[in-house]
Every structure is written in structure tokens, then in C-alpha cells.
């Protein structure tokens, strides 16, 4: 199978995908009720769509193509209200968070579609352990070469996205010490990590065709990279975020990415270099483990600072672009998060310290998601 043509898309348009947890309202464990939820959503007019995910307690919503932060919020709110209406009817709760804090992966069931069945046969228990919930952001790029260039330019900011969205401190009932433990589940997959350093679409096509000839991959979907091109949409897709606890934060992070991309397109601050990746895994790990407090090594200056400080520096640089895109409100809120409010992982930990009952934490996550 050859790689499809990189479709044209309007630069800087964006789309968001969010994987949500479906929980029962009795003990707030994951509920295998996605089929019921999808049945109730059938025929309901929403922008974007709702889809099943690999196990039967995960639901993925996606927006249509949006130009601005506000448009994103409007679409997400519409989808959320319809989803909540259906969930209410079924006595289910919906919430964000990169992991369910106490579900047992052995209890999960694969959602029956040929693709999920294939993945389950291939990856075995990894696929059930992959009951983790992420946010993906698509950004429209002017063309294929620009998309690849953007993909590698964005790699510098991956720790920002992880630290800001991190919301998965608990796994299987224990505090992992990580702000985003979800990413560790992704790392187990053989084709995860970063895309090869190729800046020209022809080279990338060649690489892809070579990989398909090896029989290792069939389509772009088989790559679990942190950022990957999505030729049929004409976008690049940032995939490292945990699903945040609130819809607003999900939209803010998308707006942040959009502003970074605009700065890259307009100011062209630095052309990506292979050497940028020398610190990539270290920075990424620091973000997963310590969130905003993690150490960030600047790949160009080799300075060390906290991820928090690097986000604040970036926000200063982004200001004119955020204003231009209508995302300055979003960036202001993220600045407050970085300065003092912290990320959702911190919120979850603080709540558990106070409540000492993970089901109660999930209940309040549902409230955060519905407000």
C-alpha cells in the first residue's frame, strides 16, 4: 500500500480528538457501555463525530475543522451536551483524565471491530492495557514539506504539551509518581516514539513504502509516534497529551499549539535539526514524571530550566500570534496554570489526599467534565 497524497488544507485550521472515560455512577469504575452510548448518539446532529475506541469503555469525540479557539469551544460544547444527555439517560458518567485511576486492565473487553480485533491479536495484553485516554490535535499545514518541517519543529515543545495536559498520576489504584503515566503505556508499542528525521515528503514517502515492504506496517495508523503527519487531512497530529479534565483546557492546549505553529510559519525562528532530538527523550521523560517542575534542556542553547519557565518564555514569544488567532484568552489561562494553578495531575492528587477514595475522585472528574 502506498502513502496517499498529502491533501490540501487551510494552514492553521485545527481539529481536536478527545478520548473520554465512560464510567458507571455506582462505584465509578469504567463501564463497558460505549455501544449503548453510540446507539443513543446515532442520528444526532453534531459537528465532528463520536467513535468507539479499542476497549468498550472508551469513547472518542472529534470536532470538525475549526479556525479559532472560540470555534473549538463552541463545537466541543455542542458535542459534550449531546453526549451528556445520552449518558444521563443511561446513568453513565463521562470524564477526562489520561488514565482511569483504579480500573483493572484485566477487566477490559475489546470493542468488536475488525481493526480492534486485529490490534488485540497482534499486541495481546498491551491492547487492553492501552485503555488510556489521550487528546490529539490536528493542525492544517500549507503543504507536505512544510508539514514535515513543522512536525520536527514542534518536537521541541512536546514537554510543554505533556506537562500542561498531564492528568494521569494514578494507575490501577496506585500513585505512580508520574504526572502523565499514560505515556508509559504508549511507549510499550514498537512503533512509538518520534518520526524519522525526514524533511521532504518524497523522502518520507520512500521511507513509508520501505516500511510497508518490510511487512511491519500497513498504514500511517500503525505508527504510534508523538507527532505524525495525517496526509488525508493535510495536517500534522500532535498525540502526546492526556485528555485534560475540562473541555476548556483541551481547547486551550489546541490554541497553544496553533499559536506555536503560526509563529513557526511566520517568523521561521529555527530550521529543525537532527541534533534537536539528542535531548528529546530526556525532556519528554521529565515532563511525564515531574510535569511543570520537570527539567527542560534547551536543544539549541543547552541551558537547563524548568518546563514551567520554558512555557512562560514561549508564551511571551507567542503573544502577537495568539492575539492574531483569537487565542490570547487561552494562552492567558495556560500562563496561570503554569504560574500557580498547576496541571490536572496536581488537582487529582490533591483531591485524593483530601477524599482518600478514588471513586470519589472520579465522580468529581465527571463534574469537572460536565461543567
Amino acid at each position, binding site marked *: 500500500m502506498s502513502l496517499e497524497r498529502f491533501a490540501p488544507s487551510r494552514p492553521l485550521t485545527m481539529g481536536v480528538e478527545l478520548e473520554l472515560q465512560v464510567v458507571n455512577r455506582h462505584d465509578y469504575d469504567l463501564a463497558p457501555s460505549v455501544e449503548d452510548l453510540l446507539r443513543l448518539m446515532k442520528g444526532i446532529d453534531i459537528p465532528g463525530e463520536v467513535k468507539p475506541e479499542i476497549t468498550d469503555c472508551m469513547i472518542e469525540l472529534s470536532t470538525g475543522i475549526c479556525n479559532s479557539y472560540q470555534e473549538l469551544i463552541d463545537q466541543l460544547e455542542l458535542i459534550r451536551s449531546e453526549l451528556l444527555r445520552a449518558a444521563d439517560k*443511561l446513568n453513565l458518567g463521562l470524564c477526562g483524565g489520561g488514565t482511569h485511576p483504579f480500573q483493572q486492565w484485566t477487566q477490559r473487553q475489546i470493542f468488536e471491530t475488525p481493526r480492534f480485533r486485529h490490534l488485540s491479536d497482534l499486541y495481546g495484553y498491551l491492547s487492553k492495557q492501552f485503555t488510556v485516554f489521550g487528546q490529539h490535535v490536528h493542525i492544517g499545514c500549507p503543504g507536505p514539506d512544510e508539514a514535515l518541517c513543522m512536525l520536527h519543529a514542534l518536537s521541541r515543545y512536546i514537554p510543554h504539551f505533556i506537562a500542561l495536559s498531564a492528568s494521569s498520576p494514578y494507575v490501577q489504584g496506585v500513585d505512580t509518581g508520574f504526572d502523565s503515566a499514560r505515556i508509559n503505556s504508549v511507549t510499550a508499542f514498537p512503533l512509538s516514539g518520534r518520526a524519522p528525521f525526514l524533511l521532504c515528503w518524497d523522502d518520507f514517502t520512500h521511507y513509508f513504502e520501505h516500511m510497508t515492504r518490510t511487512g511491519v506496517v500497513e498504514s500511517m495508523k500503525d505508527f504510534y509516534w508523538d507527532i505524525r503527519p495525517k496526509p488525508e487531512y493535510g495536517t500534522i497530529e500532535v498525540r502526546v497529551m492526556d485528555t485534560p479534565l475540562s473541555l476548556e483546557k483541551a481547547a486551550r492546549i489546541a490554541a497553544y499549539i496553533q499559536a506555536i505553529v503560526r509563529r513557526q510559519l511566520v517568523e521561521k525562528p529555527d530550521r529543525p535539526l537532527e541534533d534537536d532530538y539528542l535531548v528529546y527523550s530526556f525532556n519528554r521523560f521529565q515532563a511525564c514524571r515531574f510535569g511543570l517542575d520537570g527539567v527542560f534542556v534547551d536543544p539549541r542553547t543547552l541551558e537547563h530550566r524548568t518546563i514551567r519557565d520554558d512555557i512562560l518564555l514561549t508564551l511571551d514569544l507567542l503573544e502577537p500570534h495568539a492575539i492574531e488567532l483569537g487565542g490570547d484568552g487561552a494562552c492567558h489561562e495556560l500562563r496561570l496554570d503554569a504560574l500557580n494553578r498547576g496541571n490536572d495531575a496536581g488537582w487529582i492528587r490533591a483531591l485524593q489526599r483530601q477524599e482518600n477514595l478514588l471513586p470519589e475522585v472520579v465522580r468529581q472528574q465527571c463534574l469537572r467534565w460536565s461543567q
Partner: protein
Amino acid sequence: MALGAVQSFLPSWPLPVGGVFWIAVTLVVTGLAGEWCYRHLGFPRIVAYSATGMAIRLAGVEPLVGVADSGLRVVLDLALALLLFELGARVDVRWLRRNPWLLASSVAEAGLSFVVVYFLLARFGVSPPVALSVAAIAMAASPAIVSRVVSEFQSVGQVTERLLLMTTLNSIYAILLVKLLTGWMHSAAGNPLLAVSVPLYVLTGSLLVALLLAGGVEQLSRRLDVQSEAATVLLFGLILLATALLQMLNLSTLLAPLLAGVVFRSRRLRPWVCPDHFSAAGSLLVVVLFVVSGMMLSPGQLLSGAVMAVLLLSGRFVAKLVGVLAFARLSGLSLRQGVTLSLALTPLSIVAFVLATDLGFSFPTLRQELNSVLLGAVVLMELAGPLLVKWALERSAEIKS
């Protein structure tokens, strides 16, 4: 002299086999039978528990059967109270506000069950008071069987949730209606004062005890970790205390614990996570519940009442099916799920038995007819009900097979 000494320490012959011996044998046999049933046949264990009870009755093991029915009844009431409170606390009646079609569906299936069973029985010449009583009792599904099968096989999903909720609701309707009927039958028997005072006393009294119990458990759950030993002991104590109080005051040992659970759950937002039947001791009590209920029934009743049982159960199934399916789509259920839900609502058992026994106690003249009409169905469902519930939940893919 030597001989005399020997005689003094050797037991007399035949051995004096006491009640404890037979209770121990019963437990061992029950445990083995339950496990065998589960491992080799994939049956819910409670089928074997009830069957063991019935076998003891048939075999006429004197020291056990000799316990008066009223003695067994105390044990049964205690264990049932525990199970009913647990069920009440498991369901969330606030769901009805979010999805009013559920209430419509519940009223429809229970109402139709009443109407269909009444007309069927009346057509077959059953006297009106008995036909009405059985129709009222037949509204209820089986809380004991349903909650046991759900917890034993860890059933999860939409059908399970609705099954638990609708079973709670139709049990409440049935108990209320039976109490009102009791009043009405008193007045028909020339006791108009009793017509009002009996239901009024039983309902308000039971409600008060329910509120007290709910309040007590609420206080407990605020101060103690539910999984702690202290909490288990107190919770157990409170439920048993409430049951004792209900028995002393001649109130409903069914309604109060069920309502207490419902009230407790509907007042709190914080999830309440408990082990099944609250503890291992609770589980043992539930095992005993099914053995004892088996001992109080006789398989002979199934033989004599087989035709009536099948008639009653099929009429009732159709009624429940129509009631559930009429609102399935509106309430967010697929038709297939509607059918499995109706099937799982078909069992009737211990609650029906207790309601019938109490009615027979108040109106001795009706006892004979009541038993002959209803108990065949109860015996049949004690054995087949758990299988039916399990099968229905497997069909809806909520029990992993």
C-alpha cells in the same frame, strides 16, 4: 468397676447426634454442592443452595426440619434484610429523574403483571381475594436471586443496572399493594377499622424504621472506612437491629430494609464501595438464606402446582415483556436488551414466599388456596430463576462467559 469407668467416658450408643452436627453437615454439603454446580455445570451456586434446602426437607432430617417454620423465618428475615438493604443501596433512584421513561417502563411492567395475572387466575376460577393477592405479589421480581447472580458473576452493563433498579421498584410496589390489600380484605371481612389502620401502621412504621436505619448507616459511613472491621460489624449490627425491631413491632421486614437502602443511597453523592454482602459473614448469611428458603418449600408443591406455575409465569413474562419493550427505545434500551431484561425480571422467589406466608398468617382461610396457586411458581423459580437471570445477562454480554 473397670467396666463402669469405661462406660463413663465412652458415649452412649446410638450416638447422640445433635442439631449442631446436622447444621455442620448441611454447611459442608451445601458448600460442596454449590461449588460442584458452579464448576461442572456453570450454574449459579444458589441453585445448589436452594436444592440442598429442599433435599433436607424431602429427606426429613428431623433435627433440622423440626425447627419450627417460625424459627427458620427469623434467620430468613435477617439474611433477606441484609440483601434487600444492599440492593436498595446499590440502585440510584435519581436516575429516574434523569430518565423518566424508566419509571414509565417500571410502572408498565409491574402494572401489567398485576392485571394479567389477576385476569388469568380469575379465569381459572381462583377466588378474587387470592387472585388479587397473587397478582400483587407477582409484580415483584426476585431481589435475592437478581442481586446474588449479579454479584456472583460480576455482571456489569445497562441491562444489569436496569434489572437492579426495576427489581427494587417492583418489589416496593408489590409490598405496598399487598399491605393495602391486607387492609381491604380486613374490611371485607367486616373489620373496616383495620382496613385503614393496618396499612397505615405498617407503612408509616416501616418507613420510620427505614429512615432510622438509613440515618444510622449514613452516620457510620461518615466516620468509618466502609471496608474496616468496625464498620462491617456496626453495619451488620444496625441491619440486624432494625430487623429485630421490625419483627417486634410487627412491621414489614421487607419494605424497611429496601427503603432504607434506597434512602441512604439517594441522600449521598459520594460513592459507597462495599464488599459483596458487606463481608464474608454476610456471604455466609446469604448462603443460609437460600438453604433455609429451600427448606421452607417442598418440591411437592411444584408437582401439584406445575400447571398453575407455568401459566402464571408465562402470563407474567408476557406482561413484563410488553411493559419493558413499550418504553425500551424511549428509555435508551435496544429491543434485544429489552427482551433479556424482561427475562431476567421473570424469577420470583423468597420475597414472594414471605409475602404469601404473611398473608396466609393474617387470613388463615386463604392460606391453602394461596399456597396452591403461588408456591409451585416459587419452587420452580427458586431453581430455574438463577439460571434464567444468568442466561439473560450472558445474552446481553454483561456476564463474561
